[in-house]
């Protein structure tokens, strides 16, 4: 992954542009978004979305996470670490 957006949106993506992957607006309450862990941490990690925008994501429910893990994020919280 290259050219990541260097600004991290805290605890979700509320500063980001409205349209996200799949045509869903990321402000929708029920859009699940696949993100890539780029800076693991606890309880929150920095993750990149499909548009390489960075977000702070709570990862307690799927911890531990590593760089390169893909996680499914709902409303700022990762609910599943995806099998690779």
């Amino acid at each position: 992954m290259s050219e990541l957006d260097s600004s991290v949106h805290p605890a979700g993506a509320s500063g980001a542009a409205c349209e996200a992957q799949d045509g869903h607006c990321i402000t929708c309450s029920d859009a699940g978004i696949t993100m890539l862990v780029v800076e693991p941490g606890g309880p929150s990690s920095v993750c990149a979305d499909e548009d390489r925008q960075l977000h702070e994501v709570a990862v307690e429910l799927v911890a531990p996470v590593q760089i390169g893990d893909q996680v499914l994020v709902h409303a700022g919280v990762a609910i599943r670490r995806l099998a690779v």
Partner: protein
Amino acid sequence: MKFVDEYRDAELGQVLAGEILAELDPGRHYKLMEICGGHTHSIYKYGIDDLLPANVELVHGPGCPVCVIPMGRVDDGIAVAHNDGVIFTCFGDMLRVPGSEYTLLDAKAQGADVRMVYSPLDALRIARENPEREVVFFAIGFETTAPSTALTLKRAKAEGITNFSCVCNHVTIVPPMRALLESPDLRLDGFIGPGHVCTVVGARPFQFIPADYGRPVVISGFEPLDILQSILMILRQLRAGRCEVENQYPRVVPQEGNLRALEVMAEVFELRPHFEWRGLGFISQSALRLSEAYREFDAEERFEVPGVRVADPKACQCGEVLKGVIKPWECKVFGTACTPEHAIGTCMVSPEGACAAYYNFGRFAREREAV
């Protein structure tokens, strides 16, 4: 992106469409319900129904969290938002849902401090940054979103934050499905199961559908090939006379769900005795409220709310759409008085609502057919 691009291959889609055709009994009409609004959105966005034979009908279920919120609950939220000193936060699509008189966006225009957030964690951050203000989060959603609210409340409690509270409207998917299966005016042959809800709750809660009602369920992903494959799997079950819960989406959905998320939810929430669903009426034990241990964060305890049941506008047929009894375009006000810009009903507000999804994508196919 991995897990995305490979599931949007148009040629493979055509192959699956051919396999679906080969699986059908030409003399039978198949009625399959996709429960989740995310599936509804994908079906219209990718034109999946255009790939299906005429005797395979997709019916849209009640799994859009915004669509099922009754007007009275919106009024409760607006009443809280109008309190002096309150910062009222909610998801973006909730802002435009009509209450009995107006929306949260209108309340904002009138001077209420209403802010859109993506995550309840954003709302908690606002509370940290504004210790002199009361910050309220209007929580909606199924089991996909409820863990986010639960985790946020756990953090609030651990940090001793006292100016944060929640209007809890979280709902659970199984009770309305049971209500639909009991409904005499809806005959369904199978269900496309809600992939992301199952990520949290697992496959087991859906076992009652084949066991008690003799209908197959296939838990499905949200990409076009996922949905087509799930339809094929349902049809194969029907043809073989099998009836079970199958998982088309194992790359995301574990059989047992996310146990840590379930634990957090069990600590923070308890079942409400009953809750009103838009179009479906009151359903027992179908929604969550804060548990005794977290009652101090309950905005309904902290603020006065009207708590009045409000009937839907007569012209609006969201109830029938949510139950799959009518198609979005069969509603009297679809696309005329009710559009995404000026929604009367909830199904036209959220991108996951059947009416909005159809208005944004599907109607063009029908217009082409008409020409």
